[in-house]
């Protein structure tokens, strides 16, 4: 049996005013391209300075203000002399000191990123699943950590971990150890400092993506016979891939260039790339070398990220 139903009432033609309004809006949009603003900003404050750095990296270090030779020089009226000095780049590749520090930094950053992922994912998941009022408190507290200077936060870690610091004092007093433990001056402590400082960079992007996941995916997975753990690994994690990737890039990139944490929590033996850069600039006053190092690091860090992102289809 089939019964047809007829809607009661006439369907009149809709007014067109709304469509016209959007038409006008679209025209306005065409005249002003919103991407101009970020483009200008990036050009002025990122691309232009980058080229200056690139230029200096090809110069020679001399004792002068500024402490580098001219790359572009008008020798005669119609003769432009370009002197490209590749000595710095050759030194970076050949000098094992630079290569080891670079590898140290990469290893350190990868460890920090891994640990951040390990803690960040369950924490973001926890916040995502918290009750609304608790959720907002947690998010607020996390962002509050940004309000305190990184310097102060690292200093408090020094206070905790130094030879006569709080942890050692407590352990000594309670009789667990007889001699203070040397916490500072190794890569583990630097990694700890980095994780402590950059964990929010991991949590926020993952949390944002988790919030966007349609609940029906999760419910559907349960309904198809999965228990919580399986749902988490098979559905939640793959669907939050975008947030994980963003978090990893943020943590890795900031860790690579970090100077304050290895300087304060490290020792003379824990040389990282950031510290080498600092030394070249301020101790050796070798600006071209420092610039070459920056460019080299950029290439080594950006290129893999670029390829990674392309592969991940973002």
């Amino acid at each position, binding site marked *: 049996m089939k019964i047809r139903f007829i809607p009661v009432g006439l369907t009149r033609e809709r007014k067109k005013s709304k469509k016209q309004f959007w038409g006008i809006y679209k025209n306005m949009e065409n005249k002003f391209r919103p991407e101009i603003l970020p483009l200008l900003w990036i050009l002025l404050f990122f691309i232009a300075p980058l080229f200056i750095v690139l230029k200096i990296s090809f110069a020679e270090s001399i004792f002068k203000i500024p402490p580098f030779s001219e790359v572009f020089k008008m020798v005669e009226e119609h003769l432009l002399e370009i002197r490209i000095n590749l000595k710095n780049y050759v030194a970076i590749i050949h000098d094992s000191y630079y290569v080891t520090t670079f590898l140290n930094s990469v290893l350190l950053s990868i460890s920090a990123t891994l640990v951040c992922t390990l803690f960040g994912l369950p924490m973001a998941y926890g916040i995502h699943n918290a009750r609304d009022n608790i959720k907002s408190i947690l998010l607020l507290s996390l962002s509050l950590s940004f309000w305190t200077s990184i310097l102060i936060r690292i200093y408090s870690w020094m206070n905790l971990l130094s030879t006569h610091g709080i942890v050692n004092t407590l352990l000594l007093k309670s009789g667990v150890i007889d001699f203070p433990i040397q916490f500072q001056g190794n890569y583990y402590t630097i990694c700890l400092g980095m994780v402590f400082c950059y964990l929010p960079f991991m949590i926020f992007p993952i949390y944002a993506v988790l919030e966007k996941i349609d609940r029906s995916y999760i419910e*559907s997975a349960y309904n198809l016979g999965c228990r919580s753990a399986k749902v988490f690994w098979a559905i939640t994690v793959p669907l939050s891939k975008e947030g994980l990737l963003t978090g990893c890039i943020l943590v890795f990139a900031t860790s690579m260039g970090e100077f304050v944490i290895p300087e304060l929590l490290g020792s003379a033996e824990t040389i990282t790339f950031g510290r080498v850069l600092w030394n070249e600039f301020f101790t050796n006053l070798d600006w071209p070398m420092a610039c070459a190092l920056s460019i080299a690091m950029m290439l080594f860090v950006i290129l893999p990220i670029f390829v990674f992102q392309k592969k991940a289809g973002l």
Partner: protein
Amino acid sequence: MTIVPQQTKKNTELWQNPNIKPFIQIEGITKSYNGAVPLRDISLSIYKGELFSLLGRSGCGKSTLLRVLAGLEKPTSGRVLVDGIDVTSWPTYKRPINMMFQSYALFPHMTVYQNIAFGIKQDGLNKTEIDDRVREVLGLVQLTGYEDRKPHQLSGGQKQRAALARSLAKRPKLLLLDEPLAALDKRLREQTQFELVNIQEKVGITSILVTHDQEEAMTMSTRIAIIDEGKIRQVGVPHDIYEFPNSRYVAEFIGSINLFEGVVVEQELDHVLIESSEIDCPCYSAHTGVIPIGSNVTLAIRSEKVMISKQMPAQSQNWAQGLVKEIAYLGDVSIYYIRLNSGKVITATLPNLLRLSDKDFQWEDTVYVFWRSENSLVLNS
């Protein structure tokens, strides 16, 4: 149960046969939270192989009931029995009940094949068994060849079928369909209605469908439950729901109907006589229930059962005089809005046997509306 195409003849008498035990028993399900009561004491018996519809306006609680059945929400009280087994306390992943979500919820990071295999994998089958099952349901929903597509590479109709295949692959005892056609456009929806029913009959799976679309419920289901504010208003086959609504709410909810307030003046075994201030003459209704004389009732007449004439009907009952105020032309039919002498506007739906220009009735014509006594219904006010 197995997904083997089997000849199932539509046994419409299942629920009338007291010897057959219902396959799904919903007993006094009540759900309340934060003061709201989305489900109030819902009891339903659903038989094997049925396609049962829960029909109601949005927010009436029909989706909540479906989620309770799926185990995604816990009822405050009541029981759900599947094939005689109480599953009320079972978590959703253990229940032999699978749900097809309104949004289809196909995992975007998996291919069609992986999506369908996902559920069966949890049952611990071996690779060849999984493969066989996936191919079987893919063939059933006619998606063979689409195994390697990702959900975003499918059209709306294909997504719907993939989602159906995923729910069927688990061979559940009960299939839940949450607004399965709501995301499709009108033309595709009509076509898919029959496809869905065909697959359901072929597999012979007991199904519960939630919809707000009465046409969908009417064409597809074996029986319908009308739900309003968390309560069941009426359960019946589509024909009964339409022709014999048990209340004013159901009458108004399904189709288009004219309602008149009146008083019973005569009550016999085979009919009642009703006088209404809204109609010129007494109304003779072939109603057989017992209604005491003097009680207030509502007389209901479906729009398509109202006839129009320019001549005064010969009968002394069941007619009224009025003026044609509006004609809504819908192509196949026209709806006439006729204002009676009492001021009451009634609607009459007439098929357009003739082109509009040759119509017998035009705007502002004085006409008589009349109906057969067996076509009027008496509802308790």
